[in-house]
């Protein structure tokens, strides 16, 4: 019962976030300098009057603001994001076509950053004060300060051009026509560089957080007790220290979701990855604001859903979580 209430509250909060994003989208177009219709057309002053008039009709821009907002809500509720006037296609069609590629990239980057970050953080904590710790800490400082698009470009130069190990763009080999597991392997090959690039910043975050937390837990009484009872060292690290060091890591997961989707615009642009991040970049260039607003909306919804699932899993995994909040 308590869990059900907790979940209901979380859903309400998620809805609130989505409503807020809708309000931002709505306000941005109308707060922009100039006529919203010409902005949505993507070309200030350069389009013919009939086209602008059509947009004004399509969006009900001649109606009062509250009426416009309700109409906008109704539209979004049916996943109708309007038309991309550049591609002359419904925006939702374009987005759902590109969404799987972005999901693959962002989830891979997420898993990579958590696994490697926590692993490095634990390794550093276990050998605190040694050269291993110093190396890991230095590496995390470097990852923390690098513009990720810059790292991506350098990685292309090194791994694709100089060494020829990994492909530098796209999601699959053009014209290879692979089947079955070979096709998957090909995608994986293309995925490696972008996923690592996108995950690297949070590898640094998780390394630092895990290391600090593990070092703090290491000296606590329950660890000493376990050691005194003769629990094997491996078991102490895995069951006693790691589990507790993971708690602060989890608080960063919800922040990472938004960060990683924003970062995917950069990474997909650098690696020509055919997802919605790359779509956002193209939309920026073609001033296709309808498409851009939709990418922002869909990305926000994905972040909210991700956090909802994470919250739920977390509340099941750790009974200590306060179901009140």
């Amino acid at each position, binding site marked *: 019962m308590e869990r059900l209430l907790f979940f209901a509250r979380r859903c309400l*909060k998620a809805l*609130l*976030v989505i409503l*807020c*994003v809708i309000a*931002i989208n709505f306000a*941005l*177009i109308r707060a*922009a*300098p100039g006529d919203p219709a010409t*902005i949505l057309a993507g070309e200030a002053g350069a389009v013919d009057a009939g086209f602008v008039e059509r947009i004004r009709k399509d969006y009900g821009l001649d109606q009062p603001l509250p009426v416009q907002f309700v109409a906008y809500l109704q539209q979004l509720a049916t996943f109708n994001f309007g038309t991309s006037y550049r591609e002359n296609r419904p925006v939702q069609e374009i987005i759902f076509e590109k969404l799987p590629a972005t999901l693959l990239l962002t989830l891979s980057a997420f898993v990579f950053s958590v696994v490697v970050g926590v692993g490095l953080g634990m390794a550093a904590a276990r050998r605190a004060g040694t050269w291993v710790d110093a190396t890991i800490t230095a590496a995390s*400082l*470097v990852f*923390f*300060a*690098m*513009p990720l*698009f*810059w790292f991506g*470009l*350098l990685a*292309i*130069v090194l791994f694709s*051009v100089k060494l020829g190990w990994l492909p530098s763009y796209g999601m699959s080999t053009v014209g290879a026509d692979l089947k079955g597991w070979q096709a998957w392997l090909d995608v994986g090959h293309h995925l490696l560089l972008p996923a690592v690039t996108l995950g690297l910043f*949070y590898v*640094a*975050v998780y390394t*630092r*957080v895990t290391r*600090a937390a593990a070092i*703090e837990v290491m000296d606590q009484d329950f660890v000493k007790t376990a050691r005194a009872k003769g629990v094997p060292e491996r078991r102490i690290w895995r069951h006693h220290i790691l589990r507790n060091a993971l708690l*602060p890591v989890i608080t*960063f997961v*919800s*922040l*990472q*979701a*938004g*960060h990683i*989707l*924003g*970062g995917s*615009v*950069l990474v997909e642009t*650098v690696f020509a990855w055919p997802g919605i991040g790359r779509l*956002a*970049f193209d939309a*920026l*260039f073609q*001033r296709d*604001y309808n498409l*851009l*607003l939709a*990418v*922002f909306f869909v*990305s*926000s919804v994905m*972040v*909210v859903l991700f*956090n909802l699932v994470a919250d739920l899993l977390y509340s099941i995994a750790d009974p200590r979580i306060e179901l009140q909040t």
Partner: protein
Amino acid sequence: MKPFAARFLAVPTGMAGVTLLGAVLLLALGAGWLYPGDPWAMVADPNLPPLSPGYLFGTDMLGRDIAAGVAHGARVSLLIGVIATVIAVLAGTVLGALAGYHGGLTDDLIMRFTEIVQTIPGFLLALLMVAIFGPSLYSIVFAIGVISWPSVARLVRAEFLSMRTRDFVKAARLGGQSDLRIVFRQILPNTLSPIVVAASLMMATAILLESAISFLGLGDRRLISWGFMIGAGRTTLLQTWWLSAIPGAAIFVTVLALNFMGDALNQALNPRRRPTGGHA
């Protein structure tokens, strides 16, 4: 206890941070003197490699001096970093103070709003804002400020929550001081250290954000910036990779220096505080 400056410089990262940031600052201030004239001007043959005579970092595909671009770009990065941080810190401090000092419904409303802003993909929102309001120094600074304040608000709120029940605040209240006076004269001075630490880390993030925005081609076109240079060099990456590598290294050094400063400030100002997890 040793004076603050001595404690700060005694931390190895403090010394490193001050030195590196000092170098970038000198470069920014001296850009007009070191490289007079327009950094956009074509001054030599195109695509000269680094260490060419007279052109330390070489030239780009249009024959523009990379070193001049890096020097003038330092001004833009630091300027945008500082102003965006000031905006975010002011907004975050005001909202955090309101929430922490008043508690109750005010606190609830402000914190829910803070969480919402923190959840949504901030970089995408910043891109949207810059694209719609038109790429300029103002829109970029505004956009970075708008997405950056939540971490400061949470920090300041937590400090205010713990401060408002302390004896010296109670005493001030019993003494008849106004809320405004208590906030500004009693509580705020005591919360300055964590705010300063957060600000230095936030400036690092702001510089990274600005470079990413410019890289995507949404920078202020009148000003040369590091992110723009990386983006411009990208078109000929396979032949002349240093066009992108060099300005990126400048961003890296500046952000690293600011992270070092934040770390050292944290240790010098709050000796008993644990290291910060990150500036995410």
